[in-house]
């Protein structure tokens, strides 16, 4: 399969007063369609920074990101939001659901950003929530949902725009073991059934069992590769 996402010598440096801190240093890898890539590493190793750069949220200090063969790291700030909207889905450790919207409305928000018509929006969000086993919880607000349910809503929202790549940052960290496995299984099925790529940053040892390739990150550098 062709590479969906390619990182070439990605580097991110932060200035802290007179000191330059290297959050990510020369990271290169390729993720293909249908692949689940796992990035592991201790806190502060640069996982979140790397995911931010791969998701076109954070601009690298140097290096390049290629999306389906096209370089996107040199695009302007104005051009990046449409890329994020069309190509990426995001799942976060703290879910980041909108507390003032129901589960269905949270999923619909992703479709509203893509200007999807109302009837399609409603149908698609309901299908996605049903697919995540939340057909009974669609009109519930996040405050009334369990952690596992919240993360499933977040996954439904991330999948709503039918992205090429799903980026998940510690998606199981706030969940119990059973819910964690359920979420990992959902992400893997998304990659395998739809031929999309999933890039996962996680501490969870169980995540290894769901990944096709594992990148171990230490002090911003890839120190081990298990593909």
């Amino acid at each position, binding site marked *: 399969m062709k590479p969906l996402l390619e990182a070439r010598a990605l580097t991110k440096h932060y200035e802290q007063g007179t000191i330059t801190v290297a959050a990510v240093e020369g990271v290169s890898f390729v993720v293909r369609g249908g692949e689940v890539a796992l990035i592991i590493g201790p806190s502060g190793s640069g996982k*979140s*920074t790397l*995911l*931010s750069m791969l*998701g076109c*949220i*954070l601009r690298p200090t140097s290096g390049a990101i290629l999306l389906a063969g096209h370089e996107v790291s040199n695009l302007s700030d*104005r051009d990046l*939001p*449409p*890329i*994020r*909207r*069309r190509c*990426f889905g*995001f799942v*976060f450790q*703290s879910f*980041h659901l*909108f*507390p*003032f*919207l129901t589960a269905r*409305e949270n999923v619909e*928000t*992703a479709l*509203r*950003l893509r200007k999807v018509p109302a009837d399609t929006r409603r149908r698609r969000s309901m299908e996605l929530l049903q697919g995540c086993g939340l057909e009974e919880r669609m009109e519930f607000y996040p405050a009334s949902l369990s952690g596992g349910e919240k993360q499933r809503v977040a996954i439904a929202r991330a999948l709503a725009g039918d992205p090429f790549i799903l980026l998940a*940052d510690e998606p199981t960290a706030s969940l119990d073991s059973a819910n964690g496995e359920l979420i990992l299984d959902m992400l893997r099925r998304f990659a395998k059934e739809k031929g999309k790529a999933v890039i996962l940053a996680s501490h969870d040892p169980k995540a290894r069992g769901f990944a096709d390739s594992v990148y171990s990150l230490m002090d911003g550098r890839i120190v081990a590769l298990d593909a």
Partner: protein
Amino acid sequence: MIWLAGRLAFHNRARLIVTLFGVVFSAYLTLTETALYIGMMENATSVIRHAGADLWAASKGVQNFDFAKPFPDDRVKTLQGREEFSWAKPISLSWGFLKLPDGAQELVEIIGYDPRTPVGGPWDMVRGAAGDVDGGDKMIVDESAGQRLGELRIGSSWEVNDRPLELVGLSRGARTFTTAPIVFTSYDLAQEMTPDISRQAAAAYIAIKLRNPKDAERVAASLRRELKDNEILTTSAFVDRTVLYWTMQTGMGAAFCLTALLGLVVGAGTIGQTVFANTMEHLGEFATLKAMGASARDLNTIILAQAGIDAGLGFAFAAPLALLSRAPLETMGVTLAISPMLLASLFCVTLVTALAAAYFSIRRVRRLDPATIFRS
């Protein structure tokens, strides 16, 4: 995205109510102050606007309608019968005292007009007709004067400048800036009963109707050359001069402007603070939206729409409140001139102010780094 703004604005009901309280108060303050000012200016210019004249000849240096220096009547004759005029009618204006039933004296403005063509007379009659003051010691007063004068019974007798006058009619909407009641009498009677005007110098104004109103400026220029001791003004110029006098010379304009402005500032502050608090409280959600690919326009729309909702709801409550205040204030002799135009204009001003108040929120969200959601 307006939908999202609505959900965000209505999510915290307690905050919305507190915000609305502030916005309603400020919009009400701005609306009533402006309406009050317009009402007072309408009162100050009511006779000028309703006389139907295109031009006014007044004494030199006239500043406003209520303070006029009489000039010789022969100038009326000079102007009457001109080809380009439909008519030219003298109007007298003086101040006098009306004796109340309890013996107290009330200051009144006496306007004398030709009852046969009631130019300068009452234009909206509740009882009687403008021409009823013809032939005899008769007068018409405005119904609003009842507040000060007591019961205004048709046929009752009132002493004005120690001369008994019969009340033959009641008008509506004829008021002065000074709030002194207007006593309308015939031009001849006004001359007789007012000590400070004589038969030779009785006209305070000559109201002129042109055959072609479009010629007003040209005819005014020509009259200025001819009547060097008089001021010749078009109706709109006379209205402007009167408004300018009361607004600037009395400091009233500054006072009203300041209060109306204060209302806007309070409203803007309330909305700005609420939208900013809402933004700060939901920075995580804004960062999420940014990460999801929301454009700057989407995010600005959410913030501006929230401000718009606050302003719109606040005004929607304030406008009926102001309209409801009209009747009770009217009984106190206070005119609130609330027109659809005023409501539309002030709504626009409130909305623009509210949108401007959202600036700090927009700036905060623009600077927000969406990568923060990966760290939280």
